[in-house]
């Protein structure tokens, strides 16, 4: 085991110890339950099937909004980075959307589209698209015009350009957009659910809040955090390493 991994595990242990001590000091589960009480609540919710059901509902919204925001924001960012004229046209829109609070977008989407799944995913997507556009636009601006010219002269098909030139050139920016996007989107999804969906972790937190059940709030919230951490370590980081392996090979 690497030394920094050991430090991380030890640090996590210290956090749990601090939480447990504070809970023992307050000695009121209504205010702050202990880690073991939250764990037992999570286990109970799992056995009832409620945890899985709500995790799946939230997870679906996160992935749908994330995918759409990456595709739409990526496409806009690329064309804006490549065309100064288009950038001049669209930049004011981008600035407006960048500065529009997610909460406003959520409320407006629910008011205009209705309290439905489409409005929920749309609101989250719209909140994230401007950020993705900004990051990818930067990547497209920095892309090599010489490579683009070579691709034109050698008449590379669009798919070959996308696969071998555009995507690898944008890769660091795509990773950056994906990372910031993922960390922001799941938090916005909870707000969307809190305000207007019948299921999902956000809705359950709303319900537990109405019941003043801190243990329930922590059980749902931490379950989702665990899922996000799993995705980060099991999917995001390994794919990043795999896609960027040429850098490691080149350094070798």
């Amino acid at each position: 085991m690497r030394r920094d991994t050991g430090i991380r595990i030890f640090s996590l242990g210290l956090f749990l110890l601090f939480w447990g001590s504070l809970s023992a000091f307050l000695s009121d589960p209504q205010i702050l339950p202990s880690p073991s009480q939250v764990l037992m609540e999570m286990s109970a919710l799992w056995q009832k099937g409620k945890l899985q059901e709500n995790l799946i509902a939230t997870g679906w919204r996160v992935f749908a909004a994330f995918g759409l925001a990456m595709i739409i924001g990526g496409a806009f960012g690329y064309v804006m980075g490549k065309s100064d004229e288009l950038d001049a046209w669209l930049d004011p829109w981008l600035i407006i959307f960048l500065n529009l609070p997610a909460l406003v977008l959520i409320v407006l989407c629910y008011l205009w589209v209705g309290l439905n799944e489409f409005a929920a995913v749309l609101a989250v997507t719209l909140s994230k698209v401007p950020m993705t556009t900004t990051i990818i636009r930067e990547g497209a601006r920095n892309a090599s015009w010489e490579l683009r010219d070579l691709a034109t002269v050698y008449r590379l098909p669009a798919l070959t350009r996308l696969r071998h030139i555009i995507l690898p050139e944008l890769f660091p920016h795509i990773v950056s957009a994906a990372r910031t996007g993922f960390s922001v989107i799941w938090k916005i999804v909870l707000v969307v659910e809190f305000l207007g969906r019948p299921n999902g972790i956000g809705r359950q937190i709303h319900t537990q809040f109405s019941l003043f059940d801190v243990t329930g709030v922590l059980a749902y919230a931490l379950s989702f955090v665990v899922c996000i951490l799993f995705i980060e370590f099991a999917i995001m980081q390994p794919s990043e390493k795999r896609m960027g392996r040429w850098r490691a090979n080149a350094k070798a």
Partner: protein
Amino acid sequence: MLKLDLLCKSFAGHSVLEDIHLDLRQGDRVAVMGPSGIGKTTLLRIIAGLDTRFRGVRKTPDEIALMFQNPTLLNWRTAEENLRIFHPDAGEREVRQALKQVGLEEKASHYPQQLSVGQQRRLALARCFLTAAPLVLLDEPFTSLDPSLRSEMLSLTREFLDQSNSTMVLVTHSHDEAIALGARCFQLFSEKKKSAELVAI
């Protein structure tokens, strides 16, 4: 082979190139010379079909090869893949042969950043000449090279040109390079930025 009747090329209403006429046959080699900023690269981009905003007529073969001053390689692909991606129709033997000719046969699976500057330049040269395109455009490919590498690159380029009988247009500041490649010089003058004469060396 290559016919260019360039009446006018302007940027923001300001004319930069006027009355340039080129009529080259298969195997011709010309060097476009002149001071920096006069429009040599612009002229090359027009010939390459990368700049289409000009008044005049351009006729070139379908297949064109291009090489810049920088190697402009795909850093995320191996040396061999760098050749294959730009020449999908080239066979295994042709790719191997091209790598061998530039002394990179053993480096086929290396990434460009694992190669020296000289090796990167040679790889770019192999990509340029892999399929013996009828028209080869070279945009100052020998600038800022040390003398021995420059001489090696010139000799390899000459070898490739002799093999392929490609028509070559070279943008350069150096008469030596034009001579080494057996090219006729085409001078762009600064006063009116137009071609004055075709000088055979």
